[in-house]
């Protein structure tokens, strides 16, 4: 073979092999870690949740299920989801009395005396999976990110544990897991929803107060719910693009 042609073929061969491996590597980089579920395509989904305050009974099942499912530390300082009890006097809407003993894990102690003039209700809280999330913005290494299907996740093998994201979250949804020294938060049970299941909290809610919704799926009942109810997100003035929608949210809720 002509030496020039041989050199040309060798070079071209190397180039082809290199570009093939580069494209595989690039795909992996662009896609992050492709989900194990074969039929799950991240670009087909955009996850959110609706919470109906009017039907939440403050039983704490969601808190217990979440801690169990996601191995959340049991101490009363770490929660991926928790429930707050609000008591509001109608003439002082700005200063509600709020409590959340052990995050509502054990339910709420019944009050001996019920004041008829005070309205009370429960507000389940979790990460709002904001799509303009301040926690994602501040992470110095990009260890926390919004997945293509709209879930705010943390790469625990990459997190420095600097806690800037904990400071940046307006809703108090993040904590440092003392076992790993990295940040932890609600993943919207990503390991479940990518397999076609709902979240642990929604699964166990006895009244259906919490409903997972896929905003990209036109057949998802979340669209009807959002259309037929007056919903609000928490702290809308923060402009974080929160995707947890509350029905019956009182103006006193922070």
């Amino acid at each position, binding site marked *: 073979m002509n030496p020039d042609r041989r050199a040309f073929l060798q070079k071209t061969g190397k180039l082809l092999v290199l570009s093939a491996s580069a494209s595989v590597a690039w795909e992996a980089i662009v896609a992050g870690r492709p989900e194990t579920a074969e039929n799950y395509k991240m670009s087909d989904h955009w996850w959110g949740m609706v919470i109906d305050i009017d039907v939440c009974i403050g039983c704490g099942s969601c808190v217990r299920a979440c801690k169990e499912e996601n191995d959340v530390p049991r*101490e*009363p*300082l*770490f*929660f991926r989801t*928790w429930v*707050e009890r609000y008591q509001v006097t109608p003439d002082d809407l700005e*200063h*509600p*009395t*709020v*409590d*959340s003993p*052990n*995050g509502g894990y054990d339910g709420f102690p019944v009050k001996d005396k019920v004041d008829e003039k005070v309205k009370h209700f429960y507000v389940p*809280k979790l990460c709002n999976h904001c799509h303009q999330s*301040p926690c994602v*913005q*501040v*992470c*110095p*290494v*990009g260890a926390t990110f919004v997945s293509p299907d709209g879930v705010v996740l943390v790469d625990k093998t*990459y*997190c*420095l*544990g*600097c*806690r*800037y994201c*904990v*400071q*940046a*979250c*307006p*809703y*108090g*949804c*993040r*904590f*440092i897991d003392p076992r*790993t*020294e*990295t940040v932890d938060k609600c993943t919207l049970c990503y390991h479940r929803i990518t397999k076609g299941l709902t979240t642990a909290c929604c699964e166990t809610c006895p009244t259906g107060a919490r409903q997972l919704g896929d905003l990209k799926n036109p057949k998802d009942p979340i669209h009807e719910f959002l259309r037929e109810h007056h919903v609000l997100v928490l702290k809308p003035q*923060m402009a974080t693009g929160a995707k947890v929608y509350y029905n019956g949210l009182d103006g006193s809720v*922070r």
Partner: protein
Amino acid sequence: MESVLQSVQGFMYPNEVELQWGILIVLYPFTTGLVAGAFILASLERVFNVEAVKPTYRLALLTALAFLLVAPLPLQLHLGHPERSLEMYLTPHTESAMAMFGFVYLWYLMVVLVLEIWLDYRKDIVLMWRESSGPTRWLYGAMALWSDNISPASLALDDRIGRALTVVGIPSAFLLHGYVGFIFGSVKANPWWSTPLMPIVFLFSAIVSGIAAVMLVYMVTAWWRERAFDMGCLDTVARYLFYAFMIDFSLEMLDLIHRIYEADESFRALDFMVHTRLYTSQVLVQILAGTIVPLGMLGLVQLVQLSEKARRRIYAMAGVLTLIGVFAMRWNVVIGGQLFSKSFLGYTSYKMNFATREGLLPAILLLILPFVILAVLIRLLPPWKVQRHGAGVSG
């Protein structure tokens, strides 16, 4: 853990009860502030040819370097995974204010401070290289990069480059500390931090603390060496301190008045905090003892003719109080910003441990360390004129 829960007053979101940033993060803006302030004082002499503060020029640069070398240590110690901190340089998230820290820091350390000090000291280093022997000779040789060219032409070039570097250095110092303020000021979730004034307030308080620190270091080193104080220099430095302090105080008061007058949704909670859990550190230590008293003392010197001895005492006391006040300001920003709930419905408290990774002991050690480094630097690169064997006076 239970005791933390018991210290909660009102309602906190459960994840908020424990503070995320402790005393080490208080040290970080404090030390970087000293760096920026000391450098800006040094630059005054260089760029604006203020002869009076010349005795502090090199001392200020070395002080800045000593503190800058320590500045990232509290951050490093605070990280859950310090071994991953290099990722901030390798894979920075460009949208993050914190990610840019490494670059601003490196730029400032290497390009501005080290290079400027090196250029300024090059002649001395070469002379010390020539005169020393043994390992010291090797050390100075390495510091001179084994080039002993100190011809007038090369020294003139050093001076030109050094001046240009100082000009670049001033905005860099502003950037370094303004940026530290931005880290806090840009957190919209936290009304105690979130104000565009934050970088400016941080910057001016940095200048104040840097000038005070250099003034004190100058006094201590002169006293240690049993030399007379250059009162012209001290008076000028103290006057700069007074002016910078006036601007700083006005800015902080502007912030305070603005908050009180605007009285937004967070005001009631923050006001209550300042009157209770933050009262000692904010009102008594920061505003009263750390600002109004030293400002009054420095103002008095401007108005009344005082004896040299009285002025010396006033400068020493005002300097110490100023540093305490600025430290308290950093404390109140960092710790105060985490004592209240983002629901504005409750308060927690900061439990500081002693001999733990983020406790008081490492914080004290990290505050002493810059002075140890400074002592080494001063020994290695004397900032004042040194009598040499045969070579006469230099430096």
